[in-house]
């Protein structure tokens, strides 16, 4: 008996250990969840976290292109603090982002509301609206570069023919003209994204709500203010977050049109970072400029997250 019991226990004991260790890791539902997340985690770590971490690390070194550098602490940031071109690029980036995003939102919402109505050739018009967004950025930038050319501008030419101006407009040679011109190009390119995404949001609003409101005698403005706008808010939050991020980090339009000129008047933080880090080879300083963008981007995300998304659909409570 004793023997048998011992044998049984001896047989059971290792099986118990097997179950509690590897098998459990394989079959436990909590652990299984982690296993399935591993590939995604690896991709995020390799392609997002590592480059970001490397960028931040580089900003604390004096690395040059082609050779490594040593740790210099905050020296790059201290230098940038006294660099008027850097601060100009910060102001330019804020101006560019705020003005372009506000106008893109207003124009995009207006366009979405128009496209939501029953108009002839609806599908065709909706597709056409997307064109500026589909055209490769560099191509549209080169088109704008010609439109804004100091000698061959079609705008200057037309206005001169109409007798409205006598000399060509110096679109990209004057600092403020250049700022507004690049902002306009960004708006032209960005409106379709906002419009089409908001249009998708509008389609999800149930027509019965409008019918009920109309029966209650609501004016079109009241219908927009109390039905369309509240139901569209989650989409607006998402679309504006993306729009602000895209605008803040814009590079191609500026680089192809002005390269940050005239006299650095259109340098954004992204273009200045490239100019200093890659073209001039000061990789550490370029990385510091790029890293300096992170707080602004986090701020923009926080504003849209907490400001616009406090909604029942997200919180699952009465918190409005």
């Amino acid at each position, binding site marked *: 008996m004793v023997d048998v019991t011992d044998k049984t226990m001896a047989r059971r004991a290792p099986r118990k250990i097997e179950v509690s260790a590897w098998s459990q890791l394989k079959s436990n539902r909590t652990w299984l969840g982690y296993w399935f997340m591993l590939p995604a985690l690896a991709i995020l770590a390799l392609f997002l976290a590592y480059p970001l971490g490397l960028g931040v690390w580089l900003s604390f070194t004096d690395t040059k*292109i082609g050779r490594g550098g040593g740790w210099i602490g905050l020296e790059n940031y201290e230098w940038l603090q006294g660099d008027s071109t850097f601060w100009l690029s910060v102001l330019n980036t804020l101006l560019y982002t705020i003005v372009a995003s506000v106008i893109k939102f207003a124009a995009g919402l207006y366009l979405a509301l128009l496209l939501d109505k029953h108009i002839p050739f609806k599908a065709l018009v909706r597709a056409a609206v997307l064109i500026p967004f589909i055209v490769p950025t560099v191509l549209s930038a080169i088109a704008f570069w010609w439109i804004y050319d*100091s*000698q061959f501008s079609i705008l200057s030419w037309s206005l001169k023919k109409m007798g409205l101006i006598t000399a060509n407009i*110096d679109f*990209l040679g004057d*600092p403020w003209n250049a700022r507004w011109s690049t902002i306009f190009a960004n708006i032209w390119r960005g409106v379709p994204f906002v419009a089409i995404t908001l249009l998708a949001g509008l389609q999800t609003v149930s027509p019965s709500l409008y019918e009920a409101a109309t029966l209650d005698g609501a004016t079109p403005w009241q219908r927009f203010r109390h039905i369309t706008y509240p139901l569209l808010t989650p989409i607006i939050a998402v679309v504006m977050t993306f729009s602000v991020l895209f605008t803040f980090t814009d590079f191609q339009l500026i680089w192809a049109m002005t390269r940050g000129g*005239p006299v650095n008047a259109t340098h954004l933080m992204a273009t200045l970072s490239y*100019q200093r880090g890659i*073209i001039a*080879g000061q990789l550490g300083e370029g990385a510091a400029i790029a890293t300096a963008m992170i707080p602004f981007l986090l701020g923009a995300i926080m504003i849209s997250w907490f400001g616009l998304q406090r909604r029942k659909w997200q919180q699952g409570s009465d918190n409005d």
Partner: protein
Amino acid sequence: MHDFTRRTFVKGTAAAAMLSTSALFDWAKAWAQSSPWKPEAGAKLNLMRWRRFVEAEDAAFMKMVAAFKAATGVEISVVSESYDDIQPKASVVANTGQGLDMVWGLYSLPHLFPAKCLDVTDVADYLGKKYGGWAQSGELYGKSGNKWICIPIATTGGLMNYRVSSMQKAGFKEFPKDTAGFLELVKALKKNNTPAGFALGHASGDANTWLHWALWSHGGNLVDKNDKVIINSPETAKSLEFVKALYENFIPGTASWNDSSNNKIFVSGDLHLTSNGISVYVTAQKENKAVAEDMNHAYMPIGPVGKPTELHLAFPILTFNFTKAPNACKAFTAFMLEAENFNPWVESAQGYLSHFLNAYDKNPVWTSDPKRTPYRDVSKRTLTPAGLGTLGEKAASAIADFIVVDMFANYATGREDIKGAMAAAERQAKRIYR
């Protein structure tokens, strides 16, 4: 080393001009047999060069690559990159030790990583002895200490391009030889509504070359011979005043110009004086013959310092010292500059490429059309981007970051006063030259 049969330059030129493809291949084979550099068996080379501006030049270059392969069996894979991309890519290769064997780049590229460049003193000596010696700037560009780290292949000049009739109408019989006369000409051109215009934007070629000339011609310098930053000086202030006075008389928009802006406006007939390579003339001959016939070229005028202070764009070729086929690389470098190759190549470039080897002065491309002649001498006249200082990583960084260009643009456009413009440039330069 130089024991193989040397042909005289004249013989070479006469033979070269008309070599057909098969004759070129035959000559290449004979050359390879007597060449002092015997390529490694089975060598394959990767070469990066700047993207061509004149199509025929690129075709002639590829013909040379094909002839080299036929003669030596060495296959060369050529990639072309834009001006701006050459430096970062070459630097990464130098750092990682793989990817390319040779780079044909611009300005002072090899001096960014002299320790990674193969010593090509034997190639330089061979070519120098055979072709009448190197122009002085060739040695500056080629040597690091006592050894040659690259071979300067050619220069593209940035000289005055002007409309003859407009200049005459402004009261000048010939192009002014000094900066004071030049300023008068620019003012008179503006008055006649036939304006001048020079790039003040981030144009790596045009803006850097003419603004360094403006600085140096008044005695200003970014650094002295010990690489100490001396940009904040009365001489620099004078050059700033000079450029501001010019800018006020330019056609509008020059603050935003890139390297191609002045080309297209000049060819269209709206711009009457600018600084550029010969590409304006080459394009005008095709697209606007009236402009081509009425235009000419001149050296940059001499300023208060009393001697030429020009900066032109040099194209040096380097071989990395980690290449598996150093002899093949050296052989190709020498092969490119042999008269049978170099002469037809330079002719195909129509004046866009000017030589560093003195004997090539005799190439008929410089005299068959007298309007090209000033470009013949640019390698002899050019200083290096380092100015008085050492040609190296710091000088390369300073010119790539447009320190001098931005200083002039800041003052000329009124964004900064004279002290502010100089102080900003000084601050940035001191950081690079620390």
